């Protein structure tokens, strides 16, 4: 009992001495905090007077361009004294999530890019995260704007009366342009006795048997990343029914069960039946497709202009050419293209003017030529096209025949896009017929239209 009391007493004493110590230390620490706050505030005041160097913060996802960006940042700092800090966040999915989270938290950097559909781009603008660059672009009779390919600007532009009700204007600076075409391996076609690349779908389908007989894969593409299926199908939708009918379908005026759409879906069945599609194309990621084509394991690829850089890295001796997807309809084939990557200025940035000036410098001919040379991408600035390689030149010539969902006046529901792309996968694996797929996609379209009407 006595021992217990002693322990309790000791405990009380310890607690008292601890509290005493805490109290005296608390006052001491509080005094230090107050003094240091005043001192640091004073320091801050002094630095304001001496005008600290401006630092522009840029977030991006382009792993292949990071070194080039840092080199350009160094050159810009030498020229202007303004420091530009490029921060790379990859892969692109993680980057997208980071930008969204930063937008919600209000911690976006001075310059950033978004990898999203036009709908999400519009939300960023409406939420006040993106500066309208029109006044700068249009200044001096559109001097800055006129440097770019019109398609590159269109992707970053909201026109009057746009469906998202965004104030009309240009909201991004394109860094490069791209388009997605078909590529053919010259040596493999020669080996198969094919003298020239196919112009029509009929010619293309006929090549399937020849290639198969030689054990050569036909077409490879990253159709495991379903947006590339969407891109291929959209090319043919424009080719088979024309732009106007495609837009009317998105508006809900033409059903997906229309004969022309069934022809689009049926195209994938024909490609598969002819043996042209590579084994496992439905789950093939684009990196695998690029490896197969670069290593001459496949005769054709469906890929974007960025592939020039990728193939050069994988196999510098690859002999290949670019071509439009073989014709199947009466209307002009439209391929996806436009701004490859764009950078936006944070409207709430404290260095907004400096950020815009930097982007103007970055998109000028000299810097664009450097970026194009180092990264082998098509420059967005049309004034430096003379310095590009022949294969990039092939791609650049197709720019006028490009389109992109981001420049269409209407936009399809994401749920319909998902159903559309996944259904095409099911046609390729022989699970569903084009007719059934058309009905299923239309059902989802109607459901979403009803939801919107509510």
């Amino acid at each position, binding site marked *: 009992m006595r021992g217990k009391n002693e322990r309790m007493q000791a405990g009380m004493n310890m607690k008292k001495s601890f509290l005493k110590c805490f109290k005296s230390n608390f006052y001491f620490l509080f005094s230090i905090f107050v003094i240091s706050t005043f001192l640091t505030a004073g320091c801050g005041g002094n630095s304001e007077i001496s005008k600290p160097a401006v630092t522009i913060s840029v977030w991006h996802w382009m792993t292949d361009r990071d070194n080039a960006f840092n080199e350009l940042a160094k050159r810009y700092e030498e020229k202007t004294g303004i420091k530009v800090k490029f921060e790379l966040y990859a892969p692109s999915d993680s980057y997208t999530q980071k930008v969204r989270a930063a937008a919600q938290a209000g911690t976006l950097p001075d310059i950033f890019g978004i990898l999203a559909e036009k709908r999400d781009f519009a939300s960023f603008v409406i939420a006040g995260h993106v500066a309208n660059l029109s006044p700068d672009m249009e200044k001096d009779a559109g001097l800055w704007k006129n440097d770019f390919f019109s398609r590159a600007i269109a992707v970053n532009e909201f026109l009057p009366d746009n469906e998202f009700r965004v104030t009309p204007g240009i909201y991004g600076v394109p860094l490069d342009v791209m388009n997605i075409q078909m590529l053919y391996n010259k040596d493999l076609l020669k080996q198969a006795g094919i003298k020239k690349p196919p112009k029509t779908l009929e010619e293309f389908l006929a090549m399937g048997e020849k290639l198969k007989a030689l054990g050569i894969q036909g077409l490879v593409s990253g159709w495991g990343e379903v947006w590339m299926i969407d891109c291929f199908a959209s090319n043919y939708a424009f080719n088979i029914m024309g732009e106007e009918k495609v837009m009317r379908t998105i508006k809900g005026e033409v059903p997906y069960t229309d004969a022309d759409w069934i022809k689009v879906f049926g195209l994938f069945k024909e490609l598969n039946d002819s043996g042209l599609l590579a084994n496992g194309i439905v*789950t093939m990621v684009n990196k695998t497709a690029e490896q197969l084509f670069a290593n001459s394991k496949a005769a054709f690829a469906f890929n974007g202009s960025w592939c020039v850089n990728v193939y050069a890295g994988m196999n510098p001796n690859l002999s290949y050419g670019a071509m439009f997807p073989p014709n199947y309809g009466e209307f002009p084939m439209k391929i996806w293209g436009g701004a490859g990557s764009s950078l936006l200025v944070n409207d709430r940035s404290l260095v907004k003017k400096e950020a815009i000036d930097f982007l103007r410098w970055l998109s000028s001919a000299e810097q664009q030529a450097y970026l194009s040379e180092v990264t082998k991408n098509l420059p967005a600035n049309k004034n430096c096209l003379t310095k590009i390689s022949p294969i990039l030149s092939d791609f650049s010539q197709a720019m006028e025949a490009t389109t992109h969902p981001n420049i269409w006046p209407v936009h399809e529901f994401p749920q319909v896009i998902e159903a559309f792309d996944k259904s095409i996968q099911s046609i390729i694996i022989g699970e569903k017929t084009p007719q059934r797929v058309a009905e299923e996609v239309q059902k989802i379209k109607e459901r979403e239209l009803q939801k919107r009407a509510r």
Partner: protein
Amino acid sequence: MKAKSILINYLFVLPAVLIFGIFYIYPFLKVFQLSLMEWDGILPTMQFVGISNFKEIMTDKIWWDSMWHAGYITLIALTFQNGLALLLALACDREIKYGNIFRVIFFIPPILSEVVVGLIWQWILDGNYGILNNAFNAMGMHSLVRNWLSDPKTALTCIAVVHSWKGFGWGFIILLAGLQTIPKQLYEAAKVDGADSWQVFTKITIPLMIPVFSMVIILTILGSMQVFVLIISMVGQGLVHHTDVPVLRILASMTGSSRFGYACAQGIIFGLVLIIISFTQKKLSERIKQA
């Protein structure tokens, strides 16, 4: 004085409470709030839609199919993965030569990145140049050659097997640790009483291992139901919807369709399903233990 003392005591726990509140309670409540909204994740405004997200989930066939797919992966993990883990743990529990080396080897797959494992197995299972198909061809078993990851009949099973291969090391280590806590005297006594190996296993090992089995089963269920990185690295965005699992559907709603409210509602439903499964399993284990 007493009040001051109490106040100071509360002051000491305040940081922990704040951290718990900010990083656990607030997000938890926020998910519930968002599940009742229609929000694209960017705009500052949200639209209250009540329970319509939950109603939509109830009729979302792709969502419930994805739940079955996760269940299938879990079933394979519970049987194949844990069966293999138990067999290897029983083997390593005996005094075998190079036992420690085997323990290290068996624990390598779990410490590998899921992305790396997925890519390696994608390469092994590749329909064109994969090692597996080459091996079948070399052995003259041409009928078995196929596009393993592009065939709806085999894609999900391949994913489940790779997931089990990657995960069995965890079960192995936990089960081995459990086996080593069983007193050796019990085995010796059983042998003296004339029990054979099977009787020793069923009458001593299994009953004493039930708490360990219970823990391994819970961990397997929770780990397998939430698998998704492995799937992305093996089949990209999926083979139609045959390889979709709930976490991938939640991601698709959030980043693909920009429907944060719907994604949060999916998250709540998925969480509830996991709680129900875990609770049922716990109750079952308790009953078996009592029996």
